[in-house]
Every structure is written in C-alpha cells, then in structure tokens.
C-alpha cells in the first residue's frame, strides 16, 4: 500500500515539475532552464544519496564513468532539454503524454537487443499508445 502511495507521489511530483517549468519557461531560455533545474536536482539528490550511504557515492569502478556520462547525456542533456523544449512548444497537457511513452522505447529496445518476448498485452498496449499519440498530435485546437 505504501508503495502505491509513493508511486502516486512520484507521478504527482513529475506533473508539478512540468507545470512550474511551463510557467518559468515563459521568461527564460530552455538551455539554461535545463541547466538551472539540473543544479537543484543535483543538490537534492546528492543530499539524499549522502544520507543513505555516504561511501557509496564514491564506490564505483573507473570503468563505470563512461556509462555515467552516457546516462547523464541521454537522460539529462537530451532528455530534460527536449522535455522543456516540448513543453515550451506544445504546453504541458499535450507534451507530457507523448513523453510518457519512454517505457515503450525501452521495451522495444529490450525486444530488439535482449531477446525479450512480444506478448499480446504488449501489442495491445503499443496500439493504445499509438492511437493516443495520434489523437494528441492531430488536435488542432
């Protein structure tokens, strides 16, 4: 039950993040809006990470660094920058559902490269997502 509550809080936090970004982006460029938001995210997550296990933050092999850079570039340079840019152009209501298809992308990659099976639920879900995206993308109001 507490797990469901936490998941709901996570979803709400991301929604609030998009709403306040939309307001701020009216007066600030997306490049540095992304940079400023990453600074605050970094501070919060570093504090929490140090509180959980202060030693873990430095306990990783050197070989992991290219993976960290890849993760940072994909998730935060491209991901958040495109996130804010799409909110800037489409608004929150239309941008967030399109960006929510990320699990479909990772599932597609898992099917393509890690031999995960395609199940009927996966096909129905993918169809539902595509129809939803088309409905949003073709909304002319």
């Amino acid at each position, binding site marked *: 039950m507490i797990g469901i509550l936490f998941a709901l809080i996570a979803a709400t936090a991301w929604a609030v993040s998009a709403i306040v970004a939309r307001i701020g982006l009216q007066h600030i460029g997306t490049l540095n809006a992304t940079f400023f938001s990453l600074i605050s995210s970094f501070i919060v997550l570093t504090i929490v990470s140090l509180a959980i296990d202060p030693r873990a933050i430095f306990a990783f092999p050197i070989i992991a660094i290219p993976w960290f850079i890849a993760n*940072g570039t994909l998730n935060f340079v491209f991901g958040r920058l495109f996130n804010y840019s799409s909110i800037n152009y489409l608004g929150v209501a239309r941008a967030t559902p399109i960006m929510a*298809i990320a699990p479909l992308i990772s599932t597609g990659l898992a099917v393509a490269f890690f031999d995960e099976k395609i199940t009927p639920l996966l096909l129905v879900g993918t169809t539902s997502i595509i129809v939803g995206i088309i409905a949003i993308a073709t909304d002319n109001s």
Partner: protein
Amino acid sequence: MSIPSKPDRRSNFIGIFFALSAAISYGISQVVAKKIVTDYAEPQVAAVTGIFFGMIGMFIVGLKDLPKDLKSPRQAQMFIVISGIFSSMGVLFLFLALDRSPVVVVTPIAATTPLIAIVLSIVFLRSLEKVTLRVILGAALVVIGIALVVLGRST
C-alpha cells in the same frame, strides 16, 4: 521565448519532435541505467552521477546564453529551480515505491503523470493552455497503453 497559446502547424510539429526525442532519450537512458545499477553502482549513485555529468554538459551547451538568462526575472528562475526539485523528488519516490512494491504495480501508477499534469494544467494554467477532450482521451489511451506494455513485459 513565450509559449504560443495556440500552436501553429510548425510549432506543433517541432513540439511533437521534441517530445518524441525526449521519450527516446529517456527510453534509451533507462537501458543504460539498468546496466549501471546491475553492474557498477547503487541506484542513487547512478542518479547523482548522471545529473552531475548532465549538468556539466548543459553548462557547456548553454554558456553562450547564460549572461542573458541570469538577468531573467528571479521568479522565473525560482519556478525552474522548483521544477528541478520536484523532478528529483519524483525519482526518489519512484525508488522508494519500487523498494516496497513490485514493478508491475509501481510503473503503471507512476505512468499516470500525464493525467495528473492535465488536471493541474486545467487548474493552474487556464490562461496559458486550452485542454480539449481529445487531449484528455489521448492521454488516457497512452497511460492505459503504458500500463499494458509494463504488464505485458512482466508476464
């Protein structure tokens, strides 16, 4: 740059391109993050190091516009800072949720973000955004679809 209240065709196309690009970036990064937490580091370390390198990257990319953006209204800067805080809170609570409940339960609930965002935008962004029934139904189909994809992957 101000947000157009009614996007034209070009803005619409660019916006959809950016949103799909964000989804692809996030989707690929989930695969990379999975590799990191499986082989190299704790989830919180993966998150902190990822943001650290992302921050350096964005500093370099945005450096040219930085003096101008530092002169933007303090209130706008605060909204962006708050956005970053809430975004990281989302990540934290997702980890907490995954620690206490199975992924098949947590992921579909976490995927309701678009529906919550639509409700919030109706309440708080009334003067900026017009939310149509078509967008609400489209978002609902996406959320249902994500839940089915996650369930289909887990079964």
